[in-house]
């Protein structure tokens, strides 16, 4: 299981929408956060989110202990099972 948390503020909604495009990824909510989960890796294409760099690099609020970030650069955010 892979779990990523992103705060639900206007600048981050494009990221949650882009994540949900992947049929293997579920986007739910816990309080004011998006809870983005998948049984395997989560990969989000930055250009599909509409985020520029300042928002992109500050969008990750939390990563579950059984998951780890393996890529977070100008192209993509990838979180995989730890």
């Amino acid at each position: 299981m892979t779990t990523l948390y992103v705060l639900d503020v206007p600048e981050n909604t494009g990221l949650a929408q882009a994540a949900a495009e992947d049929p293997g990824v579920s986007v739910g909510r816990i309080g004011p956060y998006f809870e983005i989960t998948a049984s395997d890796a989560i990969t989000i294409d930055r250009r599909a989110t509409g985020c520029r760099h300042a928002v992109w690099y500050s969008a990750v609020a939390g990563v579950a202990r059984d998951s780890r970030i393996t890529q977070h650069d100008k192209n993509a955010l990838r979180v995989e099972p730890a």
Partner: protein
Amino acid sequence: MPDRHSATRLPVSQAGPIGPRLTAAGNVALLRVPSSKTGRGDAYAAFGREVPTYFIRSRHLAIHVDSYEDLMEYRYRLDASQWPVETQIQHETIESIYTHDPNGYMVELTRAMRPVTPQEDLDANLTIDALLDVVAEPSPSLAKLLARKAELIVERAAQWELEHTGP
């Protein structure tokens, strides 16, 4: 927790004219001109060619102002001083003006493009609580911070929303 911006708020009405203040208080002629053998840096630090420019530019003081009008007031005053605004940029969430002080140190004045929301205050508090937990343990890291913060989100976020949105 106190307002995160309270330490840097400086209403224009209390700020006084920037140019004359810096000139009078700083004895500019006595200050060491920003220079080094490398030619990169300021009066406080010099950097070699191997140091990325983005790192050098990341070292600066950023001061929050309350509104676009306040930001423009600072811009007018700086432009009339010996330290005119060098750049004005709308980032995604903030708008900033930049100059360098008499020591060659970069100074930013910035305003938020929208008000800070209550959920952002929650998020900031969870970050600080997670940070305190992680630095109390050996070998703190960003990965450990994000893992601890994920736990705090699971523990607190749903209850927070109930308390802030009602039944």
